[in-house]
């Protein structure tokens, strides 16, 4: 993939967020998007979120810095995102969804585009306004979340070629799929640690006897 295509796919995100239905259709069906661009948007989202912790004026965000673990913070966005993509893919493939896993990831990545676009200016704005003028700041953030939600729904609709009701139904179902996956992961890790400790104790026992 050339650098040129990367830039044009990244630029395409601006078209997608303003024309979601048309944009997400072309994203996968006309191959106008790329995973590289989607990953870039996710990275920018992470960056925006971390930078907002540090640089948002304390009038609008009070951060208890002693309690922040940056890796946990990053995982708190990435982990649900990945789980959602996998869970959604797992369900929709069973119910004639047309999307591939890579396409779902791409769609979800592009749907996050408003986050850095709004969050970065808001970080700057937060340092220029007072609490009384904070309504604009708060509105922008709420608007951003709403926008992302709409984009997410449009993305899933276009990628899987579903109706609106079916999309929303499957997004809710995806949440349950995520919960199931979390449960299985917890089970898996606890089993592994139990297994390891079993062998460790056997080895210890043998060492004692020797």
């Amino acid at each position, binding site marked *: 993939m050339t650098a040129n295509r990367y830039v044009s796919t990244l630029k395409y995100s601006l078209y997608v967020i303003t024309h979601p239905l048309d944009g997400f259709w072309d994203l996968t069906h006309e191959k106008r998007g790329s995973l590289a661009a989607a990953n870039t948007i996710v990275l920018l989202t992470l960056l925006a979120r971390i930078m907002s912790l540090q640089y948002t004026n304390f009038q609008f965000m009070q951060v*208890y810095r002693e309690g922040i673990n940056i890796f946990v913070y990053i995982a708190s966005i990435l982990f649900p995102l990945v789980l959602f993509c996998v869970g959604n893919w797992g369900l929709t493939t069973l119910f004639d969804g047309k999307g591939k896993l890579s396409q779902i990831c791409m769609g979800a990545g592009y749907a996050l585009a408003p986050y850095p676009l709004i969050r970065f200016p808001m970080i700057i704005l937060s340092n*220029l306004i*007072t*609490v*009384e003028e904070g309504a604009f700041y708060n509105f922008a953030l709420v608007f951003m979340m709403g926008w992302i939600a709409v984009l997410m729904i449009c993305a899933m609709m276009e990628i899987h070629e579903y109706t609106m009701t079916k999309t929303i139904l499957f997004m809710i179902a995806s949440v349950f799929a995520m919960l199931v996956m979390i449960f299985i992961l917890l089970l898996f890790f606890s089993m592994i640690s139990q297994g390891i400790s079993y062998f460790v104790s056997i080895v210890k026992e043998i060492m004692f006897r020797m």
Partner: protein
Amino acid sequence: MKRSMNYLAALIFSVSFLSGPTVAAYADDGSERGYTYNYDYWGDVQYSPDAYSTVDVYTATDLGLNKGFNAPSGLYVQGDDVYICDTGNNRIVQLKRENKNAFKQIRVIDEIKGDVEVRTFLKPTDICVTKDGYLYICDKGNNRILKLDQDLNFVMMFQKPDNVVFDQSAEFLPNKLEVDAAGRVYCIADNINKGMIKYDADGTFTGFYGASQVTYNFSDYIWKKYATKAQRAAMESFVPTEYDNIYMDAEGFIFACTTNVSDKGMDTGSDVPIRRLNLMGQNILIQNGNYRVMGDLYWGLGGGYKGPSLITDITALDHGIYFAIDKVRGRIFGYDKQGHMLYAFGGNGNINGSFKLPSAIDHMENDLLVLDSQDASLTVFTPTEFGNLIYQAITEYDAGDYKASGKTWEKVKVQNGNYDLAYVGIGTSLMSQEKYKEAMKYFELKWDTRNYSKAFKQYRKEWVEEHIGLLFTGVILLFVLPALIERGKKIKYQIDTAEIFKE
């Protein structure tokens, strides 16, 4: 080598010996002995130098009484005189504070004179002495409130109201009282939950005062709607909370406190343990602090104690600072007028400055007097240098001398770098001197968004006024210039393509 080490040891020893007295003097301000703390913005406990040090603990023997106190419950200070209701011994002890460390016994009041049937007390629980010398006594066991003159002559008594609003089947057990400047009596009686009983100066009952608003949550309400009569009776009923104690501050407002609080109610803020009531009986306590006025914020199962702070008594200093005492953990909480916690100190124990079961608190100037009903003693606290600096700063601020107040807060900050109010105080002082940028720095350090916002607004205004030229240039460069260039290009294009210039 060994020799030189010996020299060194001797040197260190002598130096430490020489500097000993100064070290001792330093330790004496209480910074290393007491258990004083505060909560920061995040609710984390920040330990602090002691704001109050114990002067002494006085038992009945120390005060020259022949009989020890027995469950004393009432304390009143008028000028230099201290009145202690020795409930278990049916007497009232009057003391005079002669100097900082000594009390002199004036008299023991156990009998009254005048035209009245019962001339002794039975379990007196509280006393109030007015400026003109009248004594008001809650004679709980005899179901009456007595008004006596200075020489203990009976003047009048306030009895159970014979009004229909008063439940006549209930026994009248006056527990705590206060008297205002006009001679009106406010009384808290046991088993009365309609508020305080208010009498006019002539003894007529004028109604209940300051009943707390009845609170209930919606789910409880729904449950009650569909419960049977027996179930309903078993449930807690929605009644106003009873008050436990009362204090009239220098401005004539009544502080009331209650120990009828629940864990949940304290968590959500529906239970209000401390109230300041206006004439209408509404709560006008200002709560501008980071946390509500409720004593301890956390009440883990530490040291055998559980549950929230139970405030049994309040006293307010003349400049509006008030102290509440918690009978569970024996702690004293100091708050300023705005509801910021100044410090918490005290605790349960046997050492001086700790309590077993504190029952009453009062103040003499800035000194605090605490009556312990189980330990049967009176503890006197006096502010340390740290405590006095805080008072000074607050007094200066209230007087409008913001610059001096800022300087004093600086001194407080030197003594305790974790004292949030010092930073906010310095910031406020800087703001009044129009040093907005520095003020913002102080507010930001202690997360004071409200004051920061105020300072920032002014700072931004100044900045814009100073850099108006720069801003205009920016706007021109951003918008006007591109437009002009575009225009120029257009004209150039028109000229280039115009018919008349064509060859």
